[in-house]
């Protein structure tokens, strides 16, 4: 069925609907990754957003149990050029269309996605809606819609839970945790406790963690309560700490750096990232609209460990006093290049060192 995508600036795209036939609103961004659509649409960092895929054929790899980053899609809409349907049979129990239908997420295909991406690359992300008819009413509705800035609250856990293992005890502060991080911690047989971001210092410390992870999450970290920064300021002095994505941004804010919007948002896995100390270049999944403002970093507290070689954006920070560091990119490789998982090896090395010398 013919449906329409309307952008806040009035641009309209026509396409065919798939997934749920619902009307949807969200912030529209584009993604250049050629693989991992299932991981991307279920990643909580995209809560409330609509994603345009540059990869022109989406769906041929199906939907698989091992590729969920959360149990349901996080996105509000999906725009692709060609939807390549695969059957649902003995081996493939789910496909993309059915998955989106089940979770009431609309999709739009047969869209000139390259035109849309070239447009968005100039305007930046915008509010957008997928509707049946592109009439004045739909435009008015879009203009009147206020998108939530409570994405973390929407996706993060409200209650603590455990993911037991026999190794080191890692506390994860959840801002919209994706499964990839838990999978990586599982690889190290970590004994994991996931705590809500509203948790107190005491609650964390009574668990006697060997290491702490500030998880990835959606939205603007500045919309979170200041208590989160206070929590980080204390925790970083108590145990090895790794901040990822939103967790990295919060770690920077807690140490008095500021954030600045990127000249163009980057969602993909093809930018070279350089580890400054070794000059090694590697690639990782990235999804960011903001970066830590390079000039705002207090060099007495933090130093830059990784940079994006395309736009020079800060991709990692390390604390000078404490065993605390953070990365803007996603080192859990779900989806994305495996070389980035070295960050977890670094983290666990720090944890081992800490356990050996401090307890």
């Amino acid at each position, binding site marked *: 069925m013919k449906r329409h995508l309307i952008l806040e600036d009035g641009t309209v795209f026509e396409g065919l609907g798939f997934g749920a036939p619902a009307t949807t609103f969200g912030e529209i961004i584009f993604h*250049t990754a050629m693989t991992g659509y299932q991981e991307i649409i279920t990643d909580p960092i995209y809560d409330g957003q609509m994603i345009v895929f540059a990869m022109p054929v989406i769906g041929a790899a199906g939907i698989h149990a091992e590729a969920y980053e959360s149990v349901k899609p996080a996105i509000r809409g999906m725009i692709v050029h060609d939807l390549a349907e695969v*059957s649902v049979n003995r081996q493939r129990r789910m496909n993309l269309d059915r998955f989106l239908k089940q979770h009431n997420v609309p999709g739009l295909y*047969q869209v000139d996605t*390259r035109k849309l991406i070239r447009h968005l690359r100039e305007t930046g992300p915008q509010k957008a809606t997928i509707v049946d008819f592109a009439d004045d009413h739909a435009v008015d509705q879009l203009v009147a819609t206020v998108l939530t800035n409570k994405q973390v609250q929407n996706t993060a856990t409200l209650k603590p839970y455990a993911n037991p293992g026999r190794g080191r005890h890692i506390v994860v502060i959840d801002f919209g945790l994706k499964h990839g991080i838990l999978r990586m911690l599982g690889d190290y047989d970590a004994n994991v406790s996931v705590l809500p971001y509203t948790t107190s210092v005491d609650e964390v410390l009574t668990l006697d963690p060997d290491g702490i992870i500030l998880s990835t999450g959606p939205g603007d970290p500045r919309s979170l309560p200041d208590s989160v920064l206070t929590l980080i300021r204390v925790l970083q002095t108590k145990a090895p700490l790794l901040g990822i994505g939103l967790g990295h941004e919060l770690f920077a804010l807690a140490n008095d750096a500021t954030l600045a919007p990127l000249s163009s948002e980057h969602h993909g896995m093809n930018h070279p990232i350089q580890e400054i100390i070794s*000059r090694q270049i590697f690639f990782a999944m990235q999804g960011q609209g903001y970066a830590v403002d390079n000039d705002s970093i207090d060099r007495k507290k933090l130093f830059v460990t990784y940079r994006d070689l395309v736009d020079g954006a800060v991709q990692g920070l390390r604390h000078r006093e404490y065993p605390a560091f953070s990365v803007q990119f996603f080192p859990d490789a779900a989806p994305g290049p495996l070389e980035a998982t070295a960050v977890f090896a670094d983290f666990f090395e720090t944890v081992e060192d800490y356990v050996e010398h401090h307890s």
Partner: protein
Amino acid sequence: MSNITANNVLFIGAGANDFGREAEYDAAIYQVMPELRGHGVNVYLIDENPYSLSLESLAATAIWQPLTVENIKAVIKQYQIDTVLPLFGGERALRLWSQTVQAWSHGDGPVPQTLGLTIDMLLRVNNVAVLTSMMADAGLPVITNHVAKAQEDANELLREIKLPLMVRALHPNQANTRQIVERLDEFETAVNSAKSQSMTQEIVISRAINGMKEVSLEVLRDFRGNKMQIGASEDMDPIGIHTADSLSVSPTLTLSDQILEKMRFYAFQVADLLDLRGVLHVQFAVDDLTNTIYIIKISPYIDQMASRMALVTGYPVMLVAINLAMGVALEEIVLSHDFGKKMAMMEPMMDHVTVKLPIFPFGELEQAGVSVNRQLNSIQKSVGSTIGFGRTFIEALEKAIRSAHFNNASFSPTNMSHSSDDALIQQLIHPEDNRVLLLVEAIKRGYEIDELAELTNIDEFFFYQLGHLLKLELEVEQQADSVEALRRAKKYGLSDGLLARFWQTNFKNIATLAHENHIEPTFKALEPSAGEFPENARQYYATYEEENESLPVSDDTVLVIGSGAFRMGDAAAGGYATTIVLSELRRLQYHTVIMNNNASDATLLQNLADKQYLEPLEISDVMKVVALEKPIAIIVPGNRRKLIDALTDLKQNVLILPKEKHVPNGPDDTETEFALNVFSDGHNIYPINITQHMTGELRIVPEIAQLPIQLAQTHLENPGVYQVIWYQDTSEWVKHVDVPDISHDTWLRPMPFGQVAFMSKVMQVQWLRMTVRALLSRMTLQDNELLVNVNKLILQADVAMIASDINYALHLQPTQTIDGTRFEIGVGIKYDE
């Protein structure tokens, strides 16, 4: 920035064209030699191929010699070569350089340094057994190899390893082929065949993994150990069919991120293991239901995958590769302004789909009454390939099929309906060149996709896509003249020609209907950021979308129609001809636009023309580009008669590059073919020389050629090199021959491009450039002076063109001998002793 000290650098060329050896190496060397000069070194090249472009490049000192260890050693000595670059000449150059190093003796002085791979590693790469165990030791997933020499040892292994088996030659003397043994009675033949290919009569036996998916990754590595993925492709056909003979898709569509990331990780590990400074092609066997991955082949040098990835991603693979070899770090590579600033270190992303379709020589051979084994297996049978670009798999497939110009009957859809169900099943299990149509026919007959996928080991995705195409075609066929049907058909890449056939009209009516209803093609840029950044794109493909990105180049554009895929015959020289034409047009300061669809030659190099259209070359495709670019002239190879007529009919200024429509015949064993070669500038005819051609060899007759009166009075409208052909019953090389009365028993034809390339090198006269100048009325005084005296220019040439040693028996199993100068794939040269 380079960390290499080099003064005199030698490239080893790839030699004659062969199965799996088209012009990709020559194109790569041609492209990187000027870049290397930019590093301040003297560049030398040794190659034997008369069709080589690089040998005519001004960026290097070219040595036109047969590729032998002795010649390479002599060149090294003569030119004080201190550095050798074998990685751009492919597998053969690599082997040749290994042999040279092994044959190096104390008195030869220091061994020149090898760029890209250490000598030690080079020797290991050339020994598949050593290489495999090295990878196994590093924990990489490889299939265990067993080396055998005697038949008894082989039989012993046969008892140990279960069928099916794969048998290959150790230390192959030519290209290495893999033979799959499924039945016991095939074993001995395979062993003997592999032995005969081995320089040491040793063979490698391993378990065959037929039926798994074949996936290729192209990665690169710099001297600091930085690695990057350039691209990946998946074959539709499973392992068991040679990858060159497979329909292949890039980017991969059916594989999950997890599987691909694992392969990428393995490929990076291999690059590190080799301490490579360059590009690496890794072939994998994958079973994505059980998550099983094997590395089946590694090629740490330029090959067809490297040139294909360069074309389909827009990433400058070759220019980056030469920088890596020269020890420039990835982040420090500076590309010319033709490319985006950070492009070298960004992994290319694709927002289009490409389908590579192999071209088989069966049609040409059938026409000449030579029948061959058409069944596809692990030994390559295709001689070329073509690529379709689109925004969907179907669109890319349709365009690839159109680019392939199938003219043999087995590709006619109506032919299919005659086969019985049993025959169909048999053919599905033992596929031939027409398998795509066969799959469509199977769907048409109602076979379940589950069953078909199981039977053929082809991913279900492809059946859904073909089913979709079938449904679309049936619907369109029933809705003659429907604008909606036309719109849908165009979106999926169906050509005006095909629609005209469905609706029993001609393509012009379809074009008019589309035009009247604003169904117009849009040209999308092909660039490696997938829209993320504005890039200086020069490459475009047509699709039916909303936004067009291509603007006319200029008001003095010359459009050049390429010659498409390599075919048996002299089309191997087609790419040479097209490239020279482009180069000459640029020298004459025209703006140039090229249309072509072949990744394996130089015609689509980004800096050779102002714009490239990666498109099929049928009239409807050409006219869409013409409508946009409004060229002042269109240069078309003369064998494209229908296209020439159609363009002329549409009032286009067509300039014909003389070329025969049919594969040129050659003499048989008892006769000799003589040719009086002449040049026409469109007004006058000038004699060049006389050549003598006997089976497998062509020589220049050492005498001054005169123009017979009748010929002097003939008018040849299209400028170019022509030849008057006659036959005599001699089998001796002559020093003199009388030109017969040309009014009977002779015929006039354009000189095949291959001979033009040879003649240009022998005489140091650029005949194709002269042709271009004549076509555009830009002949100079020097040109005219040269033409008047050209028949005295060279009396005795010490070099002859010879058929190269191509193993037709292995690849095609023909019923009779295939004469290498008649059904030519590649040629070499020979000097008088």
